[in-house]
């Protein structure tokens, strides 16, 4: 029983460590990648594009006081990792009519890293307070 418990703890510890290592790297690299977005976006305030704090779980077109295109409002998108991945691959393909004039990110890894950064822009993030 004790061996099983230790094994489980080891396994959990290993998984947590792996997860933490990947997340830390992803968030750190993702933050650098985010500079590509800063022509139009900021984490905590609306610019030419809407702010990103709290984006995960939002419906597209939901940021208060931001004027979206009809295409974005009607898109019906909920921003989760999968939809962000599709959008960042090619915004114009996913939402024809969006005003986000950005060609997209072809690297799967870079998209994952950027999404990792976006995902932690929640209420607990200092950039969002």
């Amino acid at each position, binding site marked *: 029983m004790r061996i099983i418990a230790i094994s489980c703890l080891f396994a959990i510890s290993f998984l947590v460590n792996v997860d933490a290592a990947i997340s830390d790297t992803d968030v750190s690299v993702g933050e650098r990648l985010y500079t590509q977005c800063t022509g139009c976006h900021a984490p905590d305030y609306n610019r030419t594009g809407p702010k990103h704090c709290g984006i995960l779980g939002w419906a597209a077109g939901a940021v208060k006081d931001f004027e979206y295109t009809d295409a974005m409002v009607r898109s019906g998108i909920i921003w989760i990792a999968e939809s962000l991945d599709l959008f960042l691959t090619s915004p114009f393909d996913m939402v024809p009519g969006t*005003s986000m*004039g950005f060609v997209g990110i072809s690297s799967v890894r870079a998209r994952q890293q950027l999404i990792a950064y976006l995902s932690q822009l929640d209420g607990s993030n200092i950039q969002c307070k």
Partner: protein
Amino acid sequence: MSNEVEKSVLLDRRGFLSHSGKIALSGTAIALMSGMSPAKAMSTGNTDSPEQDTRILNTAIAAEHEAVAAYQLGAESGLLSKGVLNVALQFQGHHKEHIEVLASTVRKLGGEAADARSSYDFPVHKLKSEKDVLTFAAGLERGAVSAYAGAIPLFDNSDLAKAAASILADEAMHWAILRQALGLDPVPGAFFS
């Protein structure tokens, strides 16, 4: 070369709105980028190109208006020394010129150019010194370079791409000068990403 001549070269009407007023198919370009075969992409009969190009240009105009407002904020902050203020106003003037050219292009495409917003949500509380203002401006300029770099591949019309690249180069020079003023390496790498 005078500014007027430069604008003329950038947006040569013959190259820009010729061919019976039809702009090259940005939608087709996007279809090609998404992996569609050239034949299929061309057969989609995509007619949204002028509207799409107008949206891209208007996004750029909106960002340029923001830059003009940001430099105005910096100029009126009282935090800039005379030399820096002069440079800031010069850069602001460039952004105004960008707006003129981009807005003129949108109108030629049959669209309506984006106006400046009545107010901007700048992080004013973080601007307490000349260095803060320069850092803020450098961030905006760096972002602008990224924005143009991300938009240029969407223009199938080479004249639009050329004009946007010219503006990108100007923003990149602003960014380098501002970095220099901040005591940073003005050109931190061989490639921009």
